[in-house]
Each structure stands twice: as C-alpha cells, then as structure tokens.
C-alpha cells in the first residue's frame, strides 16, 4: 500500500513547479481527486461594487484560527466552510479607468480593447479582449456529456443599469462579447420555467375555451359546424393530455421539476433590491437543484453601482459614499453597513444551499458549490485593485476551507487558474499569460 502523498509534498520532492506539473506529467490534478469523479461541482461568482472597508473586512489573523470582522460577521455560521484570500491583485493595465478594468478584467484576466468609453480618469476603452473564467468553464463543462446541463451557466443580476457598457458587464463569452446578466426575476423565471409554465397555463385555460365553443356554434351555419366540431374535439384531446402530463409531474414531485412561485408584481426599482436579490437567489438554488447549470454569476448592480440602501437608513448612493475619505466617519460607517448587507446576501445564498440536500448526491448543495464573492476594487476611495476582496464559501472546488490566507500580492490570474484546475480543467494560462507563469495559487487545498 502506498502512503498518501499530498500534492504539495509530491511537487516539492520532484522539484516541479505547480503550473508545470499538470502539463509535463499529464497528471490528473493530484489532491483534486475529490474534484473529479461523479460529484457535481458548481461555481458561483457574486459581485458587489465599489471596494470594501479593508479594516472591517479582512481577518486580522490568518490560518484556520481566523477572526471575522464586522463586514464578514454574517458568515459566521459558515466559518468552517469559508476562506478569505488577501493579497490577490488585479494587475491588468492598459486602457480604461479603474472601475472599468476592475470589472472588465476581474474574471477575464486580460486587458480591455481600445475604445471610446471614457471613465473618470485614464484612457477610454472598449470591451475585454478575452473570455471570462465562468464562461470558459461553462464551455468546458458543456463539451463533456457527463457535466453538460441545460444552460451550462446562468447570469443573474440585480438592478444592473439598462445600458451595455464596460461598467455593467463582468462576464464575457469571448473577446468583445460581453454577456448581459438577466436582472429581472420574471425574465429569469421564463428562461428557466417558461415552457413548463406555459403548458400549465394552457392546461388551466382550455376548460374556459371549450365551453365557449358551444356558444360560437350558434353563430355558424349548420354546414360549417363540422369544422368547429373538429376543432373543439382536438382542443379537448389536448386538454386531456395536458392534464395527464400535469398529474404525472405533481406525482413525481421531485425538487428538480418543482416550479418555484415568485412574488407578484415586483418592479425593478432601487427600493426592491432586497426582494429582487432574494427572488434571484431562490431561482438560482432552484435551478441548481434541477441541474439546469453548474456555473453562475450573480452581479449586484454594476461597477460604480450606486444603489441607495434606504432600507438601512442610507439615502446616499453607494458609489458616491465610496469616494469619501476614511476620515468622514458617517460615510465610513455607512460603507461598512452597505458591505455588511452584501455579505448578508452571500450568507443567505449559502444558507439556502446548505439547507438543500444535494439531489442524487451526498451532503448539501453547498458541499458541492463554491460561492466566490468579489468586487472590482480593493478599496473605494483609492480605486486600488490590490487586495481584491475574494471570499469563498462552500465545498464545490474542493479547497481546504475554514482558513484565512494572505498571498502577499499575487496576480489574480493565478486564482483564475486555480478555479480552472479545481473544476477539473487545468490551464497553463488564463487571460494575460504574463501573469500566469507561476501557475495556480498554492495552499488552497
């Protein structure tokens, strides 16, 4: 019997860099054994804007005995299932202002094209030059029958402004191909359940219809009634079939086919952000339970987003507040509250997933899902893209959770590589190769 050797030990002994290992030796990712095999793996990118207040965000102590500051406190129930990654920096330069590159390069790891959209500073820019990691992984999963799902990926949004520009798009299907998130829960519902819902609706209105045929018959000459009879008997047949179909479905009653019920008439407006967020998250949990997709993004507003969190007693927009100096105490406090609210949303989603048993698998859905909560900036008033907030929750990637890490300024491309590797599709580089030479991050497992 062989003693178990960790990936790290193996690499140390053989003297091969982590990045080179996969390619030179064509090894399956050691230590990622749990990632391969039959279990489903899901990955969700959650975006909130304008940076954080680092002193109230990052744990002071690293390692497994880390502390949760105010902003991350809502995740306390998940401390053993979470990981914070300090010191991961978005190093991408080139065209575009900080916010544009902050969101446009966040998941793509590559520069923006030259373009004509001018931000507050720097040069104007266009769309990203490359695919984003969520779409890249979606393509990989969809190309394999074992991991293929109905949609592959789902792009959720909450109050994303109705304009397509570099600040409103995080996900890219390829160079110059931004993917618009769906921020209307009813629209998302239609995408997920539209066909089934329409059939149910049809089943329930046909009865009204057939009754009226008899009345209409009176308005038609006797010679012509045969056509109407043909018509109504066909409608009856369809009605019967639909009823049988609906009965069968309700008897099966499994979660995968259950259609969630949405609250009616919720309009897309600032004050409904909490409700829309919940609706969208519930839809995401449902769609995962039905295995409609294994990759998702969840974009709350946009880079430079400025929701007014009146439900927290805050009347100013988030972006405006984020520019205030740290010495502005009321603003500072509000920013902590705002970011805490975002964290609560992440915690809500984690909780929903944790409560839902994995359909056809072991444990909860959270055990097979990793939420990656991130941001376009490290800190709002400095526009730094150093120390980009990366908080991971859940076991989808098979990382060693329950620790706070500090990478001391590594390019974030390496983290993107880690995502690829953990999802079973290791890459030599992702985005700008200049930032990939050291391979995926180490110490995650």
């Amino acid at each position: 019997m062989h003693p178990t050797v960790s990936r790290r030990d193996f690499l140390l002994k053989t003297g091969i860099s982590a990045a080179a290992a996969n390619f030179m030796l064509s090894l399956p990712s050691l230590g990622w054994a749990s990632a391969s095999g039959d279990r489903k793996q899901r990955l969700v990118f959650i975006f909130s804007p304008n940076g954080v207040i680092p002193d109230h965000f990052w744990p002071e102590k690293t390692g497994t005995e880390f502390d949760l500051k105010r902003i991350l406190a809502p995740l306390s129930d998940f401390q053993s299932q979470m990981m914070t990654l300090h010191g991961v920096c978005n190093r991408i330069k080139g065209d575009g202002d900080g916010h544009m590159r902050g969101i446009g390069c966040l998941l793509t790891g590559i520069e923006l094209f030259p373009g004509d959209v001018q931000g507050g500073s720097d040069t104007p820019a266009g769309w990203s030059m490359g695919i984003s990691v969520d779409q890249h992984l979606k393509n990989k999963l969809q190309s394999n029958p074992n991991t293929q799902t109905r949609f592959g990926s789902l792009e959720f949004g909450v109050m994303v402004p109705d304009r397509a520009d570099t600040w409103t798009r995080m996900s890219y299907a390829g160079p110059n191909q931004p993917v618009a998130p769906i921020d209307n829960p009813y629209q998302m519902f239609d995408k997920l359940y539209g066909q089934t819902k329409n059939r149910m609706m049809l089943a329930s209105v046909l009865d009204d219809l057939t009754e009226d045929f008899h009345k209409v018959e009176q308005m038609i000459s006797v010679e012509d009634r045969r056509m109407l009879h043909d018509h109504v008997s066909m409608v009856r047949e369809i009605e019967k079939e639909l009823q049988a179909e609906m009965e069968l479905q309700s008897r099966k009653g499994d979660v995968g086919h259950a259609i969630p019920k949405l609250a009616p008439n919720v309009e897309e407006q600032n004050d409904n952000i909490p409700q829309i967020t919940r609706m969208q998250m519930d839809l995401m949990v449902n769609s995962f339970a039905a295995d409609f997709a294994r990759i998702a993004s969840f974009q709350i507003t946009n880079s430079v987003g400025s929701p007014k969190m009146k439900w927290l007693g805050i009347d100013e927009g988030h972006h405006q507040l984020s520019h205030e100096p740290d010495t502005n105490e009321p603003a500072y406090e509000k920013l902590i509250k705002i970011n805490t609210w975002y964290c609560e949303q992440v915690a809500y989603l984690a909780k929903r997933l944790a409560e839902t048993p994995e359909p056809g698998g072991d444990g909860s859905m959270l055990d097979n899902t990793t939420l990656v909560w991130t941001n376009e900036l490290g800190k709002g008033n400095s526009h730094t893209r150093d120390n980009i907030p990366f908080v991971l929750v859940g076991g989808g990637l098979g990382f060693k959770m329950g620790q706070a890490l500090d990478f001391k300024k590594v390019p974030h491309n390496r983290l993107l590589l880690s995502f690829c590797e953990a999802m079973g599709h290791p890459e030599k580089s992702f985005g700008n190769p200049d930032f990939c030479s050291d391979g995926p991050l180490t110490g995650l497992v």
Partner: protein
Amino acid sequence: MSFNPSVHFKSFLILISVVAAPQIATADVSVHEERLAKGAAIYRAKCASCHGEKGEGGTKQYSEPLAGDASRTELVQLISDTMPEEDPGTCVGEDAEAVAAFVFEHFYSAAAQIRNRPPRVGLARLTGPQLRQSLADLYSHFRGTPQVTEKRGVKAIYFDGPSWKNEKKKIERVDPVIQFDFGHNSPGDGIDPKAFYIYWEGGVLANVTGRYEIIVRSTCSFVMDFGKIGRELINNHVQSGDKTEFRRTVTLTTGRVYPFKIDFIQRERKTEKPPASISLSWIPPGGTEQLIPKRNLISDVATPTFSLELELPPDDRSYGFERGVAINRQWDESTTAASIEFAQAASDELWPEYRKKHKQDSNENRGQLRAFLTEIVEIAFRAPLDEELKQRYIDHQVDTADDDAEAIQRSLLVSLKSPRFLYPLADQNQSLSTRQLNRLTLTLFDSLPTDDWLIKKIRKNELEQVDTIRSMAREFVKDFRTRAKLHDMLLEWLNVKRFDEIIKDENLFAGFDRLIVCDLRDSFEVFLNTVVESETSDYRQLFLADWTFTTDRLAKFYGDSWQPLEKELPKTEPIATEPIEVEPVSTAPTATAPTATAPTATAPVTTEPPKAKSVEKKPLETANTSLPELRRSVSDSQLRFGVLSHPYLMSGLSYHDATSPIHRGVFLIRYILGRTLRPPNEAFTPLSPDLHPDLTTRERVSLQTSPDHCQVCHTKINGLGFALENFDAVGKFRDQERTKTLDSTGKYVDRNGAEFSFSGPRELADYIVSSEDAHRAFVTRAFQHFVKQPAAAFGTGTLDELTDKFRKNNFNINELIVEIAVIAATRDPSLSK
C-alpha cells in the same frame, strides 16, 4: 324512358312552317338530348371504368376528376385521337361528339361543376398570414397604424459635440439611405470632427414576410432601436477594438413599417480615434446583402409595430389559393405559441404604457388591468364583450393570477385561441356595419378593424351602405397593408414565388451571377409596384410598358436598352428645406411611385441643405453617389414588353443552358390566360441540345412533344411558348439561335374556341392585353387571393360582372381590388341571414 327520335323529327317538319323560331329551339333541344343520351351510353360502356360514373376519377387508372376548361370541340378532338386509352381511334365522329357533349355538360365544364357543387362561402379560420397581420394590428390598436406616405429616406439630425444639445444642432435633413464614410473629416459645416452626434430616425417598410438580417457596420459608438423606439436591437454604446459589424435577425411582416432610430456618436478621446463610418444594410428573405434601399425607408414618424417572430405552418392551397381550413395539432400549437409571444409584448410594452396613460382611473380590484384586457379582447373578438364573456375571458383570468403579467398571459392565451378570434366570419350576431367592416378589413388587410375611428363608426352602425363601404375601400386600397397584399397577389399570379434559384451556364452566359439575379428581382418587383401604384394602375402596362428599372450592373450586362434614363446621378439634389419639426420634407418622386406612363427616376442622393436660420450650410458630399439604387431605364418599344420581356421572368422560365418554350407556354396558359392543364402523363427529361446540334430549341421541343397523347396539351402549350423564343435563357433579346433565324410564330385557341396567331413577343403582348381569357384569369386570381373564397359563392355572375367593370374602368387594378372588396364585404350570403 325511351323515345323515338323519328317521331320528334316528323313533328319538327310539320310545325316549322307555322311558327318558326321557337320550334327550331325545341328541335335543337331534342337533337341535343338525343346526342347526350347516346354519349351517356357510350361513356358508361367505355369510359366510366377509368373516369368514374360521374367523372369523379379516383380509380387506379385515372385519379383526377374529369373537369377542365377545354372547349367542346377540343374535347371531341382529344377523344377521337386518344380515347379509349387501350384502343384509340375507336371512338370517333358522332360517337366522339356525343361523348364530348355528355362529359362537357354533366361534369367537365365550369358551369357543370358549379351546378353539381354550388360554391358557398365556407367557414375558415385565420390563415397564417391573417393571424400574423391580425396580431400586428391588435398591437397597433393602442398607438394607431401608420399613415400611408410617399416620403422616403431617413430623417437625420447632426449635432456638433457628442450629445443632443439643441443649440449645437447643425444640420437637419433627410438622408436617402444610411451609408457614410466621414473618415477623420467633419460630417458637415460647423461640426467638429473630434466629437459629433448624428440621430437618424425613420421606418423600414417590409415588402415580404420573412426573416431579415439587419446589418450595421459602424466604426463608432451607436445604439439602434427597432420596431419601437425604446426596443433595443443593437447596443454598441461602447466602441471597442475593431468590432465594427453587427448583425441581428428579425422576422418582419409584409406591409408593415418598423420604426427605428440610430444614435451614432463619435466621441472625443485621448487615444487614437478610428475614422467615422456607418452603413445600414439588410439581407431580405432569399436575397443578398444590400443597403436598405430608399424605397424601403420611410422618413415619417412611424408608430410601434409588433412582428410575430414565430414561424407559422403553411396553409391549405389545394384550391390554388390559401384557405384556413386545416384543423390540426401543428396549427393549434402555432396558435398557442403566437398567443404567448403576443402576450409577452402586451405585458412588456402595451400594459406599462396603458397604465401610465390611465393612472387617473380607479384601480380598485385591479380595474385598470381589467379595462386594458377588455379593450384588447374586444378588438380581437371584433365585438363588445357581454358580462358572460367578460367573466370568462377577463375576470376569471385576472382573479386566478396575482401577478399582472401572468394575468395578461392567461387572458390573452385563452382569448387568442378562442374561436371568436380565430374565425373572423363567425359573427352572425353582430350588426351589419360590424360584419361588413370585418369582411372589408379581412379582404384588404388580412386583418381586423382596430383603429378607434373605425370602431366608432361601427358602434354607430354607419357602415351599412354599399357606397360607404366602397369609399372606405378606396381609402384602404392605398394602405401599405393592401399594397403588400396586392404585391403578393401579383407574384402569385406570375408564379415567380416558386422560382428556384436562377443559375445559368457560366460558359454560355458569362457574367450572369447572383448579383444580377438580385438586381433583376428588384427591378421586376419595383416595376410591378410602380405600374400598380400609379394613377392609372393600368393592367395593360404590365405587358406593354417599354421601360423598366435598371442598375449599372444590369445596363452593363444587358446593353443599351438597359441604360438608365438619366445617365448621371446628381451628386446632391436640394430638396424642400423646412426644419423637420415643422413638416417632413417632400422628396422627389421615388422608385415606388412614379406614374406608369411616365415614370421618373429615383432621386438617388438627396442631401438636404437645411435652412436652419442663421447658419449657412452647403450640401454634403457623401459616399452614396455610387449606390446601385434602381433607376428607370430608357424606353425601347422594339425589345421591351412589360413583364413578358423581363429577364427575371424569362430566365426563370428557362433551363440553365437553353430556353424552355414549354415552361413559358405553361406559364402563359395557366397563369396569364387562366386555363387548366393536366399534369404530363409521365415525367420527361428534355432532349439535350447537345444530342441535336442541328435543331433549334423550337424544333427540338416539337420533336419531343409530337406524339398524339402529348399533343393533347402541347398543342396549346407550345404555340404560346414559341412566341417568346426571342428571349434567350438569361432574357437577352436575339434574332437567331446559333446560326438559324428564329421562328417565333405562335397560336392560341381561346376558351370560346377562337384561334389567334401571332408572330413574336410584340404580337403576343398585344393579344394578351385584349384577351378575355387573360382578363378573366387576372380577375379570378385577384378575387381568390383577396377573398379566399370562390367568387361564384357571391353570385354566379360575380366574375363576369367584375371582369366587365375591369374593362370599363380601363383595366384599373386598384379599382378592381376595390370592387372585389365591396363584393366580399357586402354580398356574403350569410349577411342576409
């Protein structure tokens, strides 16, 4: 009963001296009856086993019913030559005459068919196109259908600086098409090339229903809305890298105008700026990419338009025209999908607007939503809703769904699948005004009455008089929707919709490529529209016009007679210059609306020097001067005879390497002269020209069709087709084939048995415009296409009456359509029930 013919004969001899005339008739009748009896006996003995007792066919030997339009004399000839099939030549002379008489009178002739099965106005559901048009109008009810206008082009406002600032407005004009390459230059006086903004707004008129690819090529930021201002089609707000081509596919409905706007912005930037350029093109169904031509651009403000994206199953065409008679699953599913698609547009677009407009109304118990749905459903049902219907179609659905969008979906799903919407003529309980208007709009628009002013008229019962209906029909016939339906009818009549892709032998016809074919198709269709939409709307011009529409490409390929009337395109053409807010400019006559007799060239580039108060501006030079826009050609009375000489038709009715007198003959006899032909006995491969290098096409065809059983039909077909031999396989005029002089003489025996002969296309064209068969064929086709019911159902003399009026009205096509619509609207026998 038996009788003795000799007795009758004797009585005839005795009585003739007393009172002559009536007795002759009696005697004729008896002779005739005798012949019929003899014919019946022979038929039963020799014919019925294949043709059926009543000529109904359906047997193994002969499946088709014995019905057609050959004259009695032709039948005699046919029987003598070819019948009975196993032993031709045994039924000749008086026997053949007797059988022909029996067959003709009992079931073969048109009169016998009507007698045996009196046509009636049958119940029909909406056809696919009718469903599409009805939904489009249902949507338009809230904002109105666009007014007909001859204004073409796109309204443009040019600003200095990258945004809309009234004080920075520098140019307002109508651009004929959108194709500009400004480079690094200013798009006009007073505009800094560093940063500018151009706003284009107009409408796109669809000529045919189908999938269109819209293509914008732009090096700058732009956003395009389409179908409704606010309904975004392309968002290139961010100009990024070298992404300059944007394609979207949309389904458009014929006769509809789709509003659009483009915000085109060159932004100032610190980095290097690309040169500014933009173009707006499309690929219409079955076509190739072209700039959206001026004739399809409407420079008036257009109202929002709904276009069903769904593809609908084809309708029954077993009678030669579309009828909504097939009731099956596929159709049912399409009505479900169409309802859902419409409901989506209603809840996304109509409902928010309605709510805004009615925010003062009480909303107790979701009253606004109920009122909104009631308004749509009353239009869809072409009738006000009583309490029971309101309960079923509105209240029950609203009460079942808390969510407004879901309530709208439910209510519209059940309403748009209701027989009250799907069967437009099931309206016996409605007022005469309502029913006549329903029929009028169904006939002319393929749709239902939706405009408020119309609804008001029927509520007041003001549409009972035939004259009122006629004057409305005269208004409606100018509508884009009617024009589109008429255009479609002409294409059906000329059978060009069933053309395969036209491809010719590259060695024989070098240069005849896909672009030429597309130009030809455009030229052909614009020619038809121009004739029809002219003041005289003269049917005869379709065969006599000595002009057509041409492009530079066509002139190069077809030679002198295809030169444009005006050689040089004017680089700029000042047009009326009022600011747009006041009144849209009137443009020079366009390709779509010159008169038939003296059409004027399209005004190809009409940049407008605006008189914006104090600023003096010069007309712009644009890249548009090389547009392949269609222009009117020179006249050529020797070589051009309307559609007959048009290469689109002539090449479509040819093989890839040679003409096909048979295709051309069949086209003329079936479509232009409206005669019936039965299909050939078996499929034939045409004799190859290579095997008979010495023969002309005419000789080859004559050789192959010489057997008697071929001649039954080919004696009619060939004589017509040969008259067009002057047009080769790509429609070029010729006098010779190889080295032989062409023989383009031909003949035709009409429905009444009269024979006409002609030499060449000129005489053929002259014959057609005077031919009663041709007039009747055109009227019949128009009636069927517009009404989708047999004309005889509206009275046995209907076709004669219409054909007479057509002649008396100088063959005015628009007037014919008006008269057809009046009959359809007011003479449906069920109206009197």
